[in-house]
């Protein structure tokens, strides 16, 4: 199965010459990248390079945009955000986006199902027992780690096949980061397509099949996982790590 995918990659997301603005400020200057079906691709870069904006632009959450965003063969740049989500895109935002006016369980159940094949609530509670324990608590009363689990869990319920995960390891204890790594490996094995924005290179490197380094709102370079050891110097220059 994995061999077949390696030989004939099927494009799931292709972003071409994407420009995006917040009001008057021009943030993305022609992003170009591809994510194939079943692949985990990471966008690396410094703060303010435009990685989060790229995700928000894919979902239609920025201001004016131009270029093209092909999702499963369909250009979605003119669609309103809720239609894009319904095509099977699950979004885990950097700020986690847990609602304080909803309980933990209401947060989990809020997102409409976009396709069959999502995880059931029982499966999710088996994967994240803390969420079951705290299901009646106000969403924002959960700990940072629990909120991150909740933000991940709720998109797994919807049946979305493309996951946009923004800085999910940020500000979490090492144990929880490790657990998130396991979850992503598990999701990859299940065939999910993942776009990962990460500040934490050590977290992203073992998970990503390919990486794009983003600088000044465009892709500066692309690195295959097998080339990683030889390109560490280059990466160090870009990321300043």
């Amino acid at each position, binding site marked *: 199965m994995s061999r077949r995918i390696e030989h004939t990659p099927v494009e799931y997301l292709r972003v071409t010459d994407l420009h995006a603005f917040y009001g008057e400020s021009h943030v993305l200057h022609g992003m170009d990248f591809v994510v194939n079906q079943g692949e985990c691709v990471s966008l690396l870069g410094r703060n303010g390079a435009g990685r989060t904006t790229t995700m928000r632009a894919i*979902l*239609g*959450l920025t201001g004016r945009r131009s270029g093209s965003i092909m999702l499963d063969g369909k250009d979605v740049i003119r669609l*309103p*955000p*809720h239609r*894009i*989500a*319904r095509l099977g895109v699950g*979004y885990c*935002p950097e700020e986690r*986006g847990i*609602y*304080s*006016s*909803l309980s933990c369980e*209401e947060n989990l*159940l*809020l*997102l*409409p199902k*976009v396709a069959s094949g999502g995880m059931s609530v029982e499966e999710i509670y088996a994967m994240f027992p803390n969420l079951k324990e705290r299901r009646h608590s106000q969403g924002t009363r959960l700990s940072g780690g629990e909120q991150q689990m909740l933000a991940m869990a709720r998109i797994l319920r*919807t049946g979305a096949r493309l996951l946009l995960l923004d800085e999910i390891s940020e500000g979490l204890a090492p144990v929880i980061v490790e657990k998130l790594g396991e979850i992503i490996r598990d999701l990859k094995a299940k065939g999910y397509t993942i776009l990962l924005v990460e500040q934490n290179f050590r977290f992203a490197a073992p998970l990503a099949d390919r990486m794009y380094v983003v600088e000044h709102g465009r892709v500066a370079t692309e690195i295959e996982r097998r080339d990683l050891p030889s390109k560490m110097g280059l990466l160090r220059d870009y990321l300043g790590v």
Partner: protein
Amino acid sequence: MTEIFGFPIQALMGQLVLGLVNGSFYAMLSIGLSVIFGMLNIINFAHGAFYMIGAFLAWMGLYYWGISYWWSLILVPLAVALIGIAVERTLLQWIYKLDHLYGLLLTFGIALVIEGMFRHWFGVAGQPFDVPEGLTGGFNLGFMFLPKYRAWVIVASLTVCVGTWFIIEKTRLGSYLRAATENPKLTQAFGINVPIMVMLIYGLGVGLAGFAGVLAAPVLQVSPLMGSNMIIVVFAVVVIGGMGSIVGSIATGLMLGIVEAIPKVLYPEISSTMVFIIMAIVLLLRPAGLFGKER
């Protein structure tokens, strides 16, 4: 005993009931204002006009089209909600991104236009509306006489208020509405059609105002000005209760109805000022309102 501190108990109890009746209207109107502000970011100055339309539709239904009060109770709120949705789709949806001031001015203008039309058609003199059959007369409770219709207004509006609370706080649709109020962009990125939610909330809010209008028709005079007389106090209720709290709107509405009514026996001159005195005190001590969350 027929007196408390020299004031007749009959009159006090009568005012208490009147206060609860007015309070019921305040509660229904302020719930609508508060959910509309939460989601649309618009201070809906046209709210009183929709309340007035509700009363007029009930009156026109009865005298022109032979629609009974009971049917009006169901049909009029729906009709008012549809008018509201039409206003939202054609006018309001274009100004959500602008400052509050634009929404306030636009809805104030809409209120003036609607009020002007009804003044032109019906004049400013109030139209009489008979208490529906079955609710005439009253109960003699021994210490006071309780008109049936007033009791009905209190029961019906409390039922509707609690129903609204239930929909928003306890149902799935309600969780969409709360999420869209808290973070509309993200909620839409999760696949929820937020523009439709916004439209529904406006319809729900003004539909409640229409319902209050029908209930008010037999107690207050049906007049083009009835909305603007009401709306100022309702804004005070929202400010005192705190934005975004439904329970707060209900409790504050009823409380202020009573606070306004009791002085009519004790010291009538201060009655209509009481609400604003309380508003000033609350704003000084708790700027977010009695039930509002500090931001």
